[in-house]
Protein backbone atom coordinates (compact mmCIF):
# COMPACT_ATOMS: atom_id res chain seq x y z
CA UNK A 1 0.00 0.00 0.00
CA UNK A 2 1.44 3.36 -1.03
CA UNK A 3 2.02 5.94 1.64
CA UNK A 4 -0.85 8.47 1.89
CA UNK A 5 -2.85 6.68 -0.79
CA UNK A 6 -6.58 6.63 -0.12
CA UNK A 7 -8.38 3.31 -0.18
CA UNK A 8 -11.40 3.49 -2.46
CA UNK A 9 -14.74 2.11 -1.37
CA UNK A 10 -15.85 0.95 -4.79
CA UNK A 11 -12.90 -1.37 -5.37
CA UNK A 12 -12.15 -4.41 -3.23
CA UNK A 13 -8.82 -4.64 -1.44
CA UNK A 14 -6.96 -7.80 -0.46
CA UNK A 15 -6.82 -7.71 3.32
CA UNK A 16 -5.30 -10.20 5.76
CA UNK A 17 -7.18 -10.78 8.99
CA UNK A 18 -6.31 -12.97 11.95
CA UNK A 19 -9.52 -14.42 13.33
CA UNK A 20 -9.46 -17.01 16.12
CA UNK A 21 -5.84 -17.81 15.32
CA UNK A 22 -6.56 -18.48 11.64
CA UNK A 23 -5.25 -16.19 8.92
CA UNK A 24 -7.77 -15.18 6.26
CA UNK A 25 -6.72 -13.42 3.09
CA UNK A 26 -9.82 -11.89 1.64
CA UNK A 27 -10.85 -9.34 -0.99
CA UNK A 28 -13.00 -6.83 0.92
CA UNK A 29 -14.76 -3.52 0.44
CA UNK A 30 -13.08 -1.02 2.71
CA UNK A 31 -16.37 0.51 3.87
CA UNK A 32 -17.48 -2.86 5.22
CA UNK A 33 -17.47 -3.31 8.95
CA UNK A 34 -15.86 -6.23 10.74
CA UNK A 35 -19.39 -7.51 11.45
CA UNK A 36 -20.25 -7.68 7.74
CA UNK A 37 -16.94 -9.33 6.93
CA UNK A 38 -17.17 -11.93 9.71
CA UNK A 39 -20.71 -12.94 8.84
CA UNK A 40 -20.84 -12.49 5.08
CA UNK A 41 -17.29 -13.04 3.85
CA UNK A 42 -15.82 -15.43 6.42
CA UNK A 43 -19.03 -17.31 7.23
CA UNK A 44 -18.57 -16.80 10.97
CA UNK A 45 -22.22 -16.19 11.85
CA UNK A 46 -21.79 -16.70 15.60
CA UNK A 47 -21.36 -12.94 15.92
CA UNK A 48 -24.87 -11.50 15.75
CA UNK A 49 -26.15 -8.32 14.19
CA UNK A 50 -28.59 -6.41 16.35
CA UNK A 51 -29.06 -2.66 16.16
CA UNK A 52 -25.91 -2.17 14.05
CA UNK A 53 -25.60 1.32 15.55
CA UNK A 54 -23.57 0.51 18.64
CA UNK A 55 -26.42 0.39 21.09
CA UNK A 56 -27.08 -3.30 21.81
CA UNK A 57 -23.76 -5.16 22.09
CA UNK A 58 -24.95 -8.23 20.13
CA UNK A 59 -22.02 -7.89 17.72
CA UNK A 60 -19.29 -7.65 20.40
CA UNK A 61 -16.03 -9.43 19.60
CA UNK A 62 -12.53 -9.17 21.05
CA UNK A 63 -9.80 -7.26 19.23
CA UNK A 64 -6.43 -7.68 20.93
CA UNK A 65 -8.37 -8.82 23.99
CA UNK A 66 -10.53 -5.67 24.22
CA UNK A 67 -14.27 -6.02 23.79
CA UNK A 68 -15.40 -3.92 20.82
CA UNK A 69 -18.47 -3.49 18.65
CA UNK A 70 -17.82 -5.14 15.30
CA UNK A 71 -20.67 -3.13 13.74
CA UNK A 72 -18.74 0.14 14.23
CA UNK A 73 -15.29 -1.11 13.33
CA UNK A 74 -13.99 -1.22 9.77
CA UNK A 75 -12.45 -4.58 8.88
CA UNK A 76 -9.54 -2.72 7.28
CA UNK A 77 -8.70 -1.24 10.69
CA UNK A 78 -8.25 -4.76 12.12
CA UNK A 79 -5.25 -5.61 9.95
CA UNK A 80 -2.45 -6.93 12.15
CA UNK A 81 -4.72 -7.37 15.15
CA UNK A 82 -5.91 -10.52 16.86
CA UNK A 83 -9.66 -10.95 16.50
CA UNK A 84 -11.53 -13.42 18.70
CA UNK A 85 -15.17 -14.24 18.04
CA UNK A 86 -17.52 -16.59 19.86
CA UNK A 87 -16.31 -19.39 17.54
CA UNK A 88 -12.80 -19.04 19.01
CA UNK A 89 -13.62 -18.99 22.71
CA UNK A 90 -13.78 -22.74 23.37
CA UNK A 91 -10.58 -24.80 23.51
CA UNK A 92 -11.37 -27.17 20.64
CA UNK A 93 -14.11 -29.38 22.11
CA UNK A 94 -13.71 -28.10 25.67
CA UNK A 95 -16.09 -25.29 26.44
CA UNK A 96 -14.76 -22.10 28.02
CA UNK A 97 -15.68 -21.93 31.75
CA UNK A 98 -18.09 -19.13 30.86
CA UNK A 99 -19.83 -21.19 28.20
CA UNK A 100 -20.07 -24.11 30.63
CA UNK A 101 -21.58 -21.93 33.34
CA UNK A 102 -24.04 -20.32 30.90
CA UNK A 103 -25.21 -23.77 29.75
CA UNK A 104 -25.49 -25.12 33.29
CA UNK A 105 -27.42 -22.17 34.68
CA UNK A 106 -29.60 -21.67 31.61
CA UNK A 107 -28.22 -18.18 31.19
CA UNK A 108 -29.14 -18.12 27.51
CA UNK A 109 -32.80 -17.81 26.69
CA UNK A 110 -33.21 -17.00 23.00
CA UNK A 111 -29.41 -16.84 22.81
CA UNK A 112 -29.13 -13.86 20.50
CA UNK A 113 -27.23 -11.64 22.95
CA UNK A 114 -25.15 -14.53 24.31
CA UNK A 115 -22.12 -14.39 21.95
CA UNK A 116 -21.62 -10.68 22.67
CA UNK A 117 -22.04 -11.15 26.40
CA UNK A 118 -19.60 -14.08 26.45
CA UNK A 119 -17.01 -11.95 24.63
CA UNK A 120 -17.46 -9.01 27.03
CA UNK A 121 -17.31 -11.34 30.05
CA UNK A 122 -14.26 -13.20 28.72
CA UNK A 123 -12.40 -9.94 28.35
CA UNK A 124 -13.23 -9.08 31.96
CA UNK A 125 -12.12 -12.46 33.37
CA UNK A 126 -8.97 -12.43 31.22
CA UNK A 127 -7.95 -9.08 32.73
CA UNK A 128 -8.12 -10.62 36.21
CA UNK A 129 -6.43 -13.85 35.06
CA UNK A 130 -3.55 -11.79 33.65
CA UNK A 131 -3.54 -9.76 36.85
CA UNK A 132 -3.73 -6.73 34.62
CA UNK A 133 -2.89 -3.50 36.41
CA UNK A 134 -6.14 -2.09 35.05
CA UNK A 135 -8.15 -4.67 36.97
CA UNK A 136 -8.05 -2.38 39.97
CA UNK A 137 -11.46 -2.95 41.43
CA UNK A 138 -12.33 -6.25 43.12
CA UNK A 139 -14.15 -8.68 40.83
CA UNK A 140 -17.65 -8.84 42.23
CA UNK A 141 -21.26 -8.56 41.10
CA UNK A 142 -20.96 -4.78 40.61
CA UNK A 143 -17.86 -5.11 38.44
CA UNK A 144 -19.47 -7.87 36.36
CA UNK A 145 -22.61 -5.77 35.90
CA UNK A 146 -20.52 -2.85 34.71
CA UNK A 147 -18.57 -5.03 32.24
CA UNK A 148 -21.72 -6.32 30.52
CA UNK A 149 -23.66 -3.05 30.81
CA UNK A 150 -23.27 -2.50 27.06
CA UNK A 151 -24.98 -5.78 26.21
CA UNK A 152 -28.74 -5.75 26.05
CA UNK A 153 -30.77 -8.94 26.62
CA UNK A 154 -34.35 -8.51 25.41
CA UNK A 155 -35.46 -11.76 27.08
CA UNK A 156 -34.35 -9.84 30.21
CA UNK A 157 -32.52 -12.86 31.63
CA UNK A 158 -29.98 -10.63 33.33
CA UNK A 159 -29.95 -12.33 36.72
CA UNK A 160 -28.96 -15.71 35.30
CA UNK A 161 -26.40 -14.08 33.03
CA UNK A 162 -24.75 -12.32 36.00
CA UNK A 163 -24.90 -15.50 38.07
CA UNK A 164 -23.30 -17.55 35.30
CA UNK A 165 -20.42 -15.07 34.95
CA UNK A 166 -20.02 -15.13 38.74
CA UNK A 167 -19.99 -18.92 38.76
CA UNK A 168 -17.31 -19.04 36.07
CA UNK A 169 -15.26 -16.40 37.92
CA UNK A 170 -15.62 -18.33 41.15
CA UNK A 171 -14.45 -21.56 39.56
CA UNK A 172 -11.42 -19.69 38.27
CA UNK A 173 -10.79 -18.35 41.80
CA UNK A 174 -11.28 -14.78 40.66
CA UNK A 175 -14.40 -13.74 42.52
CA UNK A 176 -14.09 -11.35 45.44
CA UNK A 177 -17.73 -11.06 46.47
CA UNK A 178 -18.75 -10.04 49.94
CA UNK A 179 -18.49 -13.31 51.96
CA UNK A 180 -22.00 -12.79 53.31
CA UNK A 181 -23.38 -13.20 49.79
CA UNK A 182 -24.52 -16.56 48.56
CA UNK A 183 -21.60 -18.32 46.94
CA UNK A 184 -22.87 -19.90 43.78
CA UNK A 185 -20.35 -22.68 43.35
CA UNK A 186 -20.87 -24.03 46.88
CA UNK A 187 -24.59 -24.19 46.21
CA UNK A 188 -24.41 -25.32 42.66
CA UNK A 189 -21.39 -27.61 42.63
CA UNK A 190 -22.56 -29.39 45.81
CA UNK A 191 -25.97 -30.11 44.36
CA UNK A 192 -24.42 -31.86 41.42
Amino acid at each position, binding site marked *: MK*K*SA*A*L*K*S*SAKQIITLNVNGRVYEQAL*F*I*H*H*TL*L*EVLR*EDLGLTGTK*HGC*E*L*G*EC*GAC*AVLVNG*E*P*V*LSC*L*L*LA*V*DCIGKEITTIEGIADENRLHPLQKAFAELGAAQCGYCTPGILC*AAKSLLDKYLRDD*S*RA*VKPLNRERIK*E*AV*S*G*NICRCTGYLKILEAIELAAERLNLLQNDPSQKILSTVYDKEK
Partner: protein
Amino acid sequence: MIRLPEFRYYRPKTLKEAVKILNSEGEKAVIVAGGTDLFPNMKRRIQTPSVLVSLQQVKELHRKISYTKINGDQEKRLVIPSGLTLSEVCENRLIRENYPFISKTTSSIATPLIRSMGTIGGNLCLDTRCTYYNQSLEWRESVDFCMKAPEGKLDIPCRVAPGSPRCVAANSSDTAPLFCALEAEFHIVSQEGERTIKPAEFYREDGEFYLNKKAEEILSEITLPSSENLHAVYLKLRRRGSFDFPVLGAAAVLKMTGQKVKEAKIFLNAVSSAPIEVLESEKALIGTELEEEKILEAAESARQSAKPFDNTDFYPHWRKEMVGVLLKRALLELKSRKT
Protein backbone atom coordinates in the same frame (compact mmCIF):
# COMPACT_ATOMS: atom_id res chain seq x y z
CA MET B 1 -27.74 -5.15 7.58
CA ILE B 2 -27.41 -1.35 7.74
CA ARG B 3 -24.39 -0.54 5.61
CA LEU B 4 -22.06 2.42 5.57
CA PRO B 5 -22.16 4.62 2.48
CA GLU B 6 -19.06 4.44 0.30
CA PHE B 7 -16.08 6.74 0.96
CA ARG B 8 -12.40 7.10 0.26
CA TYR B 9 -10.36 6.12 3.29
CA TYR B 10 -6.98 7.41 4.41
CA ARG B 11 -5.02 5.80 7.24
CA PRO B 12 -2.04 8.14 7.84
CA LYS B 13 0.66 7.01 10.25
CA THR B 14 1.98 10.39 11.38
CA LEU B 15 0.45 13.75 12.29
CA LYS B 16 2.41 15.39 9.49
CA GLU B 17 0.93 12.99 6.95
CA ALA B 18 -2.57 13.42 8.42
CA VAL B 19 -2.57 17.24 8.25
CA LYS B 20 -1.18 17.11 4.72
CA ILE B 21 -4.03 14.87 3.58
CA LEU B 22 -6.62 17.02 5.37
CA ASN B 23 -5.19 20.12 3.77
CA SER B 24 -5.26 18.71 0.26
CA GLU B 25 -8.73 17.12 0.56
CA GLY B 26 -10.25 20.28 2.06
CA GLU B 27 -13.78 20.60 3.41
CA LYS B 28 -15.06 17.27 2.07
CA ALA B 29 -12.74 15.26 4.32
CA VAL B 30 -13.97 14.27 7.75
CA ILE B 31 -11.73 13.10 10.57
CA VAL B 32 -12.62 9.79 12.21
CA ALA B 33 -11.05 8.69 15.50
CA GLY B 34 -12.90 5.84 17.25
CA GLY B 35 -15.87 6.02 14.87
CA THR B 36 -18.43 5.28 17.57
CA ASP B 37 -20.36 8.48 16.85
CA LEU B 38 -19.53 9.09 13.18
CA PHE B 39 -20.25 5.56 11.90
CA PRO B 40 -23.77 5.32 13.41
CA ASN B 41 -24.44 8.79 11.95
CA MET B 42 -23.15 7.63 8.56
CA LYS B 43 -25.22 4.44 8.71
CA ARG B 44 -28.30 6.59 9.28
CA ARG B 45 -27.15 8.95 6.48
CA ILE B 46 -27.02 11.87 8.93
CA GLN B 47 -23.49 12.49 7.70
CA THR B 48 -22.23 11.19 4.34
CA PRO B 49 -18.64 12.36 3.93
CA SER B 50 -16.94 11.25 0.71
CA VAL B 51 -13.49 11.19 2.32
CA LEU B 52 -12.54 9.87 5.76
CA VAL B 53 -9.18 10.42 7.41
CA SER B 54 -8.63 7.93 10.22
CA LEU B 55 -6.48 8.89 13.20
CA GLN B 56 -6.21 5.31 14.46
CA GLN B 57 -2.72 4.77 13.04
CA VAL B 58 -1.29 8.20 13.90
CA LYS B 59 1.48 7.34 16.33
CA GLU B 60 1.78 10.77 18.00
CA LEU B 61 -1.85 10.55 19.13
CA HIS B 62 -1.30 7.22 20.87
CA ARG B 63 1.61 8.07 23.14
CA LYS B 64 1.47 7.32 26.82
CA ILE B 65 -0.13 9.76 29.23
CA SER B 66 2.85 11.50 30.81
CA TYR B 67 4.08 14.61 32.56
CA THR B 68 5.68 17.46 30.69
CA LYS B 69 7.20 20.79 31.64
CA ILE B 70 5.74 23.68 29.72
CA ASN B 71 8.00 26.52 28.54
CA GLY B 72 10.44 26.15 31.40
CA ASP B 73 7.51 26.26 33.78
CA GLN B 74 8.40 24.74 37.14
CA GLU B 75 5.05 23.02 37.28
CA LYS B 76 4.68 19.58 35.81
CA ARG B 77 1.57 19.12 33.69
CA LEU B 78 -0.10 15.90 32.65
CA VAL B 79 -0.64 15.51 28.91
CA ILE B 80 -3.31 13.23 27.44
CA PRO B 81 -2.86 12.38 23.74
CA SER B 82 -6.24 12.69 22.01
CA GLY B 83 -6.14 9.28 20.31
CA LEU B 84 -6.29 7.27 23.54
CA THR B 85 -9.53 5.40 24.07
CA LEU B 86 -11.87 6.43 26.87
CA SER B 87 -11.07 3.12 28.64
CA GLU B 88 -7.35 3.82 28.41
CA VAL B 89 -7.84 7.27 29.94
CA CYS B 90 -10.25 5.99 32.57
CA GLU B 91 -7.99 3.13 33.71
CA ASN B 92 -4.68 5.00 33.51
CA ARG B 93 -2.83 4.98 36.82
CA LEU B 94 -1.71 8.63 36.69
CA ILE B 95 -5.27 9.73 35.95
CA ARG B 96 -6.81 7.47 38.59
CA GLU B 97 -4.44 8.66 41.28
CA ASN B 98 -4.23 12.37 40.50
CA TYR B 99 -7.40 13.14 38.57
CA PRO B 100 -9.95 10.58 39.84
CA PHE B 101 -12.79 12.83 38.63
CA ILE B 102 -11.60 12.33 35.03
CA SER B 103 -11.73 8.56 35.54
CA LYS B 104 -15.22 8.85 36.94
CA THR B 105 -16.41 11.12 34.14
CA THR B 106 -15.02 8.94 31.36
CA SER B 107 -16.55 5.85 32.98
CA SER B 108 -19.96 7.53 32.73
CA ILE B 109 -19.71 7.80 28.93
CA ALA B 110 -21.66 5.22 26.91
CA THR B 111 -20.82 1.54 27.56
CA PRO B 112 -17.58 -0.40 28.12
CA LEU B 113 -17.77 -1.61 24.51
CA ILE B 114 -17.92 1.94 23.18
CA ARG B 115 -15.33 3.20 25.66
CA SER B 116 -12.80 0.68 24.36
CA MET B 117 -13.24 2.15 20.84
CA GLY B 118 -14.19 5.81 21.30
CA THR B 119 -11.37 8.24 22.03
CA ILE B 120 -11.00 11.16 24.42
CA GLY B 121 -10.42 13.49 21.44
CA GLY B 122 -13.51 12.15 19.73
CA ASN B 123 -15.63 12.72 22.82
CA LEU B 124 -14.36 16.29 23.13
CA CYS B 125 -15.26 16.94 19.47
CA LEU B 126 -18.56 15.02 19.69
CA ASP B 127 -21.24 16.17 17.26
CA THR B 128 -24.12 18.05 18.89
CA ARG B 129 -27.37 16.14 19.26
CA CYS B 130 -31.05 16.89 18.74
CA THR B 131 -34.31 14.96 18.41
CA TYR B 132 -34.68 16.39 14.88
CA TYR B 133 -31.11 15.49 13.84
CA ASN B 134 -30.34 12.07 15.32
CA GLN B 135 -33.00 10.23 13.35
CA SER B 136 -33.12 7.98 10.30
CA LEU B 137 -33.02 9.53 6.83
CA GLU B 138 -36.68 8.60 6.24
CA TRP B 139 -37.74 10.31 9.48
CA ARG B 140 -35.79 13.46 8.66
CA GLU B 141 -37.09 13.50 5.07
CA SER B 142 -40.66 13.27 6.35
CA VAL B 143 -40.26 16.56 8.25
CA ASP B 144 -38.16 18.06 5.43
CA PHE B 145 -35.01 18.06 7.55
CA CYS B 146 -33.94 20.83 9.90
CA MET B 147 -31.36 23.61 10.06
CA LYS B 148 -28.58 21.04 10.57
CA ALA B 149 -29.44 19.68 7.11
CA PRO B 150 -27.41 17.76 4.53
CA GLU B 151 -25.23 19.85 2.24
CA GLY B 152 -27.11 21.75 -0.42
CA LYS B 153 -30.29 22.12 1.63
CA LEU B 154 -30.47 25.77 2.56
CA ASP B 155 -32.88 28.03 4.42
CA ILE B 156 -34.49 25.32 6.53
CA PRO B 157 -35.60 26.67 9.90
CA CYS B 158 -34.68 25.12 13.22
CA ARG B 159 -37.53 22.69 14.07
CA VAL B 160 -37.05 23.11 17.81
CA ALA B 161 -36.97 26.91 17.88
CA PRO B 162 -38.30 28.05 14.47
CA GLY B 163 -37.40 31.70 15.09
CA SER B 164 -33.83 30.91 16.06
CA PRO B 165 -31.08 32.27 13.79
CA ARG B 166 -28.90 29.29 14.74
CA CYS B 167 -29.20 25.55 15.30
CA VAL B 168 -29.86 24.74 18.96
CA ALA B 169 -28.66 21.09 19.00
CA ALA B 170 -27.21 20.20 22.39
CA ASN B 171 -23.60 19.66 23.37
CA SER B 172 -23.65 16.06 24.65
CA SER B 173 -20.01 15.47 25.48
CA ASP B 174 -19.47 14.46 29.10
CA THR B 175 -15.82 15.41 29.10
CA ALA B 176 -16.31 18.87 27.51
CA PRO B 177 -17.81 20.68 30.56
CA LEU B 178 -15.27 19.06 32.89
CA PHE B 179 -12.29 20.10 30.76
CA CYS B 180 -13.78 23.60 30.40
CA ALA B 181 -14.10 23.91 34.18
CA LEU B 182 -10.61 22.49 34.68
CA GLU B 183 -9.25 25.18 32.34
CA ALA B 184 -7.21 22.57 30.54
CA GLU B 185 -5.44 23.38 27.28
CA PHE B 186 -6.27 21.89 23.91
CA HIS B 187 -3.46 21.58 21.37
CA ILE B 188 -4.49 21.83 17.76
CA VAL B 189 -2.34 20.89 14.81
CA SER B 190 -2.72 21.78 11.15
CA GLN B 191 -0.58 22.27 8.07
CA GLU B 192 -0.02 25.87 9.24
CA GLY B 193 1.41 24.76 12.57
CA GLU B 194 0.24 24.37 16.13
CA ARG B 195 -1.99 26.44 18.36
CA THR B 196 -3.32 26.16 21.88
CA ILE B 197 -6.84 27.02 22.90
CA LYS B 198 -8.77 27.04 26.17
CA PRO B 199 -11.68 24.56 26.08
CA ALA B 200 -14.17 27.30 26.94
CA GLU B 201 -13.18 29.04 23.69
CA PHE B 202 -13.09 25.80 21.72
CA TYR B 203 -16.88 25.33 21.83
CA ARG B 204 -19.33 27.57 19.97
CA GLU B 205 -22.89 28.40 20.87
CA ASP B 206 -24.12 27.03 17.54
CA GLY B 207 -25.35 23.46 17.09
CA GLU B 208 -24.28 23.37 13.46
CA PHE B 209 -20.82 24.93 13.70
CA TYR B 210 -20.10 23.87 17.24
CA LEU B 211 -16.29 23.95 17.34
CA ASN B 212 -13.77 26.72 16.88
CA LYS B 213 -11.76 24.33 14.76
CA LYS B 214 -11.33 24.21 11.01
CA ALA B 215 -12.06 20.95 9.18
CA GLU B 216 -8.35 20.43 8.50
CA GLU B 217 -7.27 20.94 12.12
CA ILE B 218 -6.65 18.03 14.49
CA LEU B 219 -7.06 18.15 18.26
CA SER B 220 -3.80 16.43 19.22
CA GLU B 221 -3.39 16.66 23.00
CA ILE B 222 -4.97 17.91 26.18
CA THR B 223 -2.78 19.42 28.89
CA LEU B 224 -4.23 19.31 32.38
CA PRO B 225 -3.62 21.88 35.12
CA SER B 226 -1.77 20.82 38.26
CA SER B 227 -3.99 18.67 40.47
CA GLU B 228 -2.79 20.40 43.64
CA ASN B 229 -5.62 21.88 45.73
CA LEU B 230 -7.99 21.02 42.93
CA HIS B 231 -11.43 19.65 43.79
CA ALA B 232 -13.54 18.60 40.87
CA VAL B 233 -16.69 16.70 40.09
CA TYR B 234 -18.94 16.01 37.11
CA LEU B 235 -22.46 14.74 37.63
CA LYS B 236 -24.58 13.47 34.78
CA LEU B 237 -28.33 13.15 34.49
CA ARG B 238 -29.68 10.54 32.10
CA ARG B 239 -32.57 8.12 31.75
CA ARG B 240 -30.63 4.85 31.96
CA GLY B 241 -27.70 4.48 34.35
CA SER B 242 -25.86 2.07 32.07
CA PHE B 243 -25.93 3.84 28.72
CA ASP B 244 -27.16 7.27 27.71
CA PHE B 245 -26.08 10.66 26.52
CA PRO B 246 -26.49 13.33 29.19
CA VAL B 247 -29.78 15.23 29.31
CA LEU B 248 -27.94 17.47 31.74
CA GLY B 249 -24.44 17.58 33.16
CA ALA B 250 -22.83 19.75 35.80
CA ALA B 251 -19.08 20.13 36.21
CA ALA B 252 -17.69 22.00 39.21
CA VAL B 253 -14.01 22.69 39.84
CA LEU B 254 -12.88 24.46 43.00
CA LYS B 255 -9.42 25.66 43.92
CA MET B 256 -9.09 25.93 47.67
CA THR B 257 -6.86 27.86 50.05
CA GLY B 258 -7.31 26.11 53.34
CA GLN B 259 -11.04 25.81 53.88
CA LYS B 260 -11.90 28.72 51.61
CA VAL B 261 -12.88 28.59 47.97
CA LYS B 262 -10.30 30.63 46.07
CA GLU B 263 -11.52 29.99 42.54
CA ALA B 264 -14.65 28.32 41.23
CA LYS B 265 -15.53 27.16 37.73
CA ILE B 266 -18.96 25.79 36.96
CA PHE B 267 -20.07 24.54 33.55
CA LEU B 268 -23.31 22.89 32.44
CA ASN B 269 -23.78 20.75 29.34
CA ALA B 270 -26.73 19.40 27.35
CA VAL B 271 -28.71 22.60 28.02
CA SER B 272 -27.03 24.47 25.17
CA SER B 273 -24.90 23.95 22.05
CA ALA B 274 -21.71 24.57 24.03
CA PRO B 275 -20.80 23.91 27.66
CA ILE B 276 -22.14 26.98 29.48
CA GLU B 277 -20.27 28.74 32.25
CA VAL B 278 -22.47 29.89 35.14
CA LEU B 279 -20.72 33.02 36.38
CA GLU B 280 -23.35 33.86 39.04
CA SER B 281 -22.90 30.44 40.68
CA GLU B 282 -19.13 30.83 40.65
CA LYS B 283 -19.42 34.27 42.27
CA ALA B 284 -21.71 32.87 44.95
CA LEU B 285 -19.04 30.36 45.98
CA ILE B 286 -15.80 32.36 45.89
CA GLY B 287 -14.56 33.25 49.36
CA THR B 288 -17.01 30.90 51.09
CA GLU B 289 -16.33 27.72 53.02
CA LEU B 290 -19.04 25.94 51.02
CA GLU B 291 -21.70 26.67 53.59
CA GLU B 292 -24.98 25.02 52.72
CA GLU B 293 -26.82 28.29 52.04
CA LYS B 294 -24.07 29.35 49.64
CA ILE B 295 -24.36 26.04 47.81
CA LEU B 296 -28.13 26.54 47.55
CA GLU B 297 -27.59 30.08 46.27
CA ALA B 298 -25.15 28.84 43.59
CA ALA B 299 -27.55 26.06 42.58
CA GLU B 300 -30.49 28.49 42.32
CA SER B 301 -28.45 30.89 40.14
CA ALA B 302 -27.61 28.04 37.78
CA ARG B 303 -31.26 26.95 37.63
CA GLN B 304 -32.35 30.47 36.75
CA SER B 305 -29.75 30.93 34.03
CA ALA B 306 -30.25 27.58 32.25
CA LYS B 307 -32.52 27.59 29.21
CA PRO B 308 -32.77 24.03 27.91
CA PHE B 309 -34.63 23.46 24.63
CA ASP B 310 -37.10 20.69 23.88
CA ASN B 311 -34.52 18.77 21.84
CA THR B 312 -33.51 15.79 23.94
CA ASP B 313 -35.02 13.22 26.28
CA PHE B 314 -37.26 14.59 29.12
CA TYR B 315 -39.25 17.83 29.22
CA PRO B 316 -37.18 21.03 29.13
CA HIS B 317 -38.91 22.55 32.17
CA TRP B 318 -38.04 19.47 34.23
CA ARG B 319 -34.43 19.59 33.02
CA LYS B 320 -34.31 23.27 34.03
CA GLU B 321 -35.52 22.35 37.53
CA MET B 322 -32.91 19.59 37.68
CA VAL B 323 -30.07 22.06 36.98
CA GLY B 324 -30.43 23.32 40.56
CA VAL B 325 -30.74 19.82 41.99
CA LEU B 326 -27.76 18.42 40.09
CA LEU B 327 -25.46 21.34 40.87
CA LYS B 328 -26.46 21.21 44.54
CA ARG B 329 -25.58 17.51 44.62
CA ALA B 330 -22.27 18.16 42.86
CA LEU B 331 -21.27 20.87 45.32
CA LEU B 332 -22.39 18.84 48.33
CA GLU B 333 -20.23 15.98 47.05
CA LEU B 334 -17.24 18.31 46.90
CA LYS B 335 -18.03 19.62 50.37
CA SER B 336 -18.25 16.11 51.83
CA ARG B 337 -14.98 15.10 50.17
CA LYS B 338 -13.23 18.20 51.49
CA THR B 339 -14.11 17.52 55.12
